[in-house]
Structure formats: C-alpha cells, structure tokens
C-alpha cells in the first residue's frame, strides 16, 4: 500500500531530511515545539540545536534570517500565520527581496520563509488572510503554493536548496490533509504546474485550498456535461505560464479560483496575463473566483459567504459557457 501522510508531516520530513543533509539548514520561529503546524518537535532530536524558538519579534527574526542567509546558513523562518508577515514586510520586501539585485548579484540569500495562510473557520480578520498577491508583486521573491502532501514535501526540499528567497505558503485547512508521499527522496522543480484533471470546455487555474474546491466543482460540472480542465499552479513565482496558455488555447475559457480578496489578487494577475498574451484564444470573459472585497468576518454564515465556494466556481464556469 502507498504510504500516506499529512501536509504537516510532509513539511516535517522535508525539513528534517534537509537538516540532516546540510548542517547549515536551521529553523526558527515562535513556539515551534508546541506549534501544531510544525507537528510538535523536530523528528530527530539531534537536530534540536537547529530548531530555534524566537521571541515575538517578527521584524527582527525575519531580518535575522536574512543576516544568517548572507553568512553561510540556510535558514527556514517560520511565521505562525501569514497575517503576521505584515509586521516583517520591510525586511521581506525592502531587504530580503532586493539585496541580491542591489548588490549586483553578489549576495546569495538561501532563505525560506514559511507561512500558513487562509481561513480555517472563525478565526476572523487578523488570522485568516491570504496574502500571496503582496509577495507575487514583489520582484525578487519566489512564491510557492502547494496543495498536496506530495507537492509540499518535494517543493519544500527544493525551496531549502534554492539560493534565493522563497516564500513558502501553506494553507491551514490542508495541514491535516493526507496523501501519498513516497519514502524515497524526490524534489519538485519550481515553475511547473500540473494538470489535475483534463477537460475541453473551460480551464480552471487554482492553487492551495481552493484547488480542492475547484476539483469538486469540476466533478459537479461533469455531471452537467461540462468538461473542465483543472490546473494546479503549485508555484506562483516562477509561473508556469505556458501550461496556462496551452490550456486556454484548447478550451478558450478561463476561470481563476483562489482565496485572496478579489481586488488586487494573483487571480487578477493571471487574468491580466492571459488577457495580454492569450487574448486570441479567448472565447469568453475571464472569470475570477476569490474572496469578496472585505476582511474575513467572524460568524460562519458570513465567513462562508465571503470565501470562494464550490458553488461560486460552478457558477463562474457556467457564466462563460
């Protein structure tokens, strides 16, 4: 039988393996030993010295990650939630993303910033955000957004070995999602999306938790005779633009589905990209399915309404068929 583990476990494995492989890899962040997202503690206690609890000082421990990366280490900086990255954006955008470029390529920044994002049910406006747009809009950052344990592990290992800053976004709702992860080592290159489901009538481009909703929507639509191709981007920077264009060339129709607030989202970026580079293929408007343009509200009725749902994806597809 195939081995199945959760996304959390996949990350633990990736970090543990890379730490053993390379003594310059280390992990820092808040409350790592008790944080369910990290899974409790490093798998191998001999690595404990390189799993470092930080004070609650996001700007400085993120910046410290940069200092360590510049001087021979390969830090993984864990933010408890992506919402708290906003405290550290000067370091991320002004320093981390720019120093390699500003130094004419002399600085090497092998740094991973790992931040869980997304709404996970009544955590309200300051603990539910999806913020990939900010990172995608910042030249100098790679932005990774996996949806399965397999991808999480393979991409995390690639991230750790990359010599550039990587923003690794996971989705809280996927933490305990199980999936096949082989025992053997593997890496997944950045910039390669995958077709999760083949189809002819419409292309849905998605990532993270909304990908799952997209797949459910595609199944529902199949029952109504609509054939949907679903693409999991897996990495937003670099972007597998060819995969998107090829699919749209075939289907002529595009829906981008994700969890950020719609305005200024990566969904907008991808729509704009296709409206610029793939216009000739388009038979219908490009639809974006995303969160409504408000903060995430607390009450479930309202939270559900604000977040993109399967029904919204189904409707978007039907609107352009």
């Amino acid at each position: 039988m195939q081995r199945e583990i959760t996304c959390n476990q996949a990350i633990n494995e990736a970090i543990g393996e890379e730490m053993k492989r390379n003594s310059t890899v280390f992990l820092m962040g808040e409350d790592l030993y008790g944080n369910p997202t990290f899974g409790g503690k490093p798998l191998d206690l001999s690595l404990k010295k390189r799993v470092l609890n930080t004070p609650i000082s996001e700007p400085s421990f993120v910046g410290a990650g940069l200092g360590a990366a510049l001087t021979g280490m390969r830090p993984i900086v864990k933010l408890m939630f992506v919402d708290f990255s906003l405290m550290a954006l000067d370091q991320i955008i002004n320093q981390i993303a720019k120093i390699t470029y500003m130094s004419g390529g002399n600085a090497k920044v092998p740094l991973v910033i790992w931040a869980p994002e997304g709404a996970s049910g009544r955590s309200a406006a300051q603990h539910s955000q999806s913020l990939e747009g900010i990172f995608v809009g910042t030249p100098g950052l790679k932005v990774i957004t996996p949806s399965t344990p397999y991808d999480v592990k393979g991409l995390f290992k690639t991230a750790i070995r990359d010599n550039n800053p990587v923003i690794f976004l996971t989705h809280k709702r996927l933490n305990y999602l199980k999936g096949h992860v082989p025992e053997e080592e593997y890496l997944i290159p950045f910039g390669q999306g995958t077709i999760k489901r083949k189809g002819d009538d419409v292309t849905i481009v998605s990532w993270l938790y909304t990908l799952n909703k997209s797949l459910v929507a595609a199944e529902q639509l199949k029952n109504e005779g609509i054939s949907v191709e679903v693409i999991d981007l897996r990495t937003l920077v670099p972007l597998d633009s060819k995969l998107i264009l090829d699919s749209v060339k075939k289907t002529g129709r595009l829906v981008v589905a994700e969890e950020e607030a719609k305005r200024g989202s990566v969904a907008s970026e991808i729509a704009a990209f296709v409206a610029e580079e793939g216009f000739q293929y388009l038979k219908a408007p490009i639809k974006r399915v995303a969160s409504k343009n408000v903060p995430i509200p607390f009450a479930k009725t309202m939270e559900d309404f604000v977040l993109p749902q399967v029904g919204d994806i189904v409707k978007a597809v039907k609107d352009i068929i």
Partner: protein
Amino acid sequence: MNISKSKLINMYEKMVQIRLFEEEIIKLIGLGQPLGMAHLYIGEEAVAVGVCSNFLDDDYIVSTHRGHGHCIAKGVKIKYMMAELFQKKTGTNKGKGGSMHIADFTVGMLGACGIVGGGIPIATGSGLSIKLRETNQVAAAFFGDGATNQGTFHESLNMASIWKLPVLYICENNLYGMFTPASYALSVQDVSKKAEAYGIPGVTVNGMDVIDVYEVTNQAVKRARNGLGPTLIECKTYRYYEHYGSSTDSFYRTKEECEKWKQRDPIKNFRIRLINDGVLTEDKLYGIEEKVNAEIEEAVKFAEESPNPNPEDALEDLFV
C-alpha cells in the same frame, strides 16, 4: 485601604463577572458550541479590574487577544459580548469580530487585538489625542510579557515619554507567551525595569491582588491626568487555562506551578479579605455571585435567541 465600600463591591462584582463569564464559555465549549478562538483570562482578573476601576467611561483602553477581562472591567455589556461569541447580529461587533476583536467605543474600549503588540501604538495614539484635545482623560494599553519583545512596545513607550502622553502601559506578565517562558524570551527578569530606558516610572506589582493593582494604577493615573506622562506597570499574574481554549494540559508548565498560583487566586483571596475587613458578609458576597450568575444565564439566553447575521451582511460596515 482607603477605597470606598461601593467601589470595593464593584471591583468584586467585576472580577466575578469575568470569572463566571469565562467559566460559562468553558461549559459551552464542552457542549460543542463553536465560539471561535477564545483566549481565557481566568486567573488574571485582578489586573483588568484593578486597573480599570480607576477609569471613567471616557477613558480609553486597548486590549489584546486575551480581552474578555478588559472588556468587562471597562464596562462592556456581557450580553452583547456573549452574543458576539455566539456569532450573532446582536453582538458587540455584529458577529464580525469575535473574541479577539470585541470593541465598544461607547465605554472607551477601543478594541481587543489579535496581533501581539499591535494594540500598543493605538493606545498611544489615543493618549496623543487626549493631549491634543486637552481633556483630562487617560488611556491604557494592555499587553502580555511576550508582546514586550515586539518593536511597537519600544517605539510607543518612547513616543509617550517624549510627548508626556497620559498613557498607562499595563504588562500582564503571566510568565509565558504561548508556550515560551518569559524567562527565555525576555532579556530582563522584570519588565518594569525597561521603563528606565524611556525615562519613565516602572513598577512591578502583584497581579493577583486587585488592591495592589488598583493602588499602583491610581498613582499612575494621577500622574497622567496631571500631565506628567506615562507609567509602565508590570503585573505578575498567571493564566489557569491553556493559551487558548479550555484545556489545562500544559507540556511547558508543571502542575505544581499551576497549583501554586491558584493558591493565590485573586477572587478567592479578595473575597476572604472583604469578609475579614468587614466590608461585606459572606451572605452579601454570595448574593453578588448569584446576581452575576443570573446575568450570565440571561446573556446566554439573549445570545441564543438572537438572530444570526445574514450572509450578505458581510458586505456591510467596510466603510462608514
């Protein structure tokens, strides 16, 4: 203590309100009622009440993720808080905020805050506002030991100092920030020591004793209202429950430590003191507890019977 009897009674009642409100939450969680992320304040009641008993309605406070105690102490109505936790339209925040964002501007409660360290500048700004408007108000920022390592603590205390703002910085040092001991994360033992770095007074007080907290705060409020600027007050205290939720299992704290602190329970000991000092009889105290119990019961009823927000209500209140 030269605090009026009515004030003492009021303080006791507030503490009991906080305790019973949260015990009700624990009960509700046990029953499977989804209340969101509730960070319980039980054990720390003396701080919120000792501080806020010095305030008038138009004084301001800014709270934290652990905000129920501050809200109740500042006068937010329990039934609207309960309705908020129940995600109802009648909640303090119309169901949009939840535990970490309860606010009531009519009583100067400018908001709980889910970002550690995020509320300190806001309280500082309300102090600046007081200074610019030349009123006699004061403001207080509540924050934990963990929050003192956030840059906003430093920046805000500096600004309050150079501008002599009428702000009280109340550190609730409950020895841990989530699972991390203050003794690990903090470079000094007493947070109050950091006051020197800003040229302002700093005091450490027994945060399990409401009278101690009240009196130290009282001095600081006088200073502030007299235009002499901010004070940093560190209250050593303890949370009985886990970082959030209703569990008491801690992998990072010993049972003995918890038990030791519970011996110093702020409500139990204040109760004994009130009786011993002849302020109130056991009967009267019991009467207060009964009254609060009824209040909580009523609040739950109100919350249960209140209407849910409509999904589309989510599109309102972005701008005013």
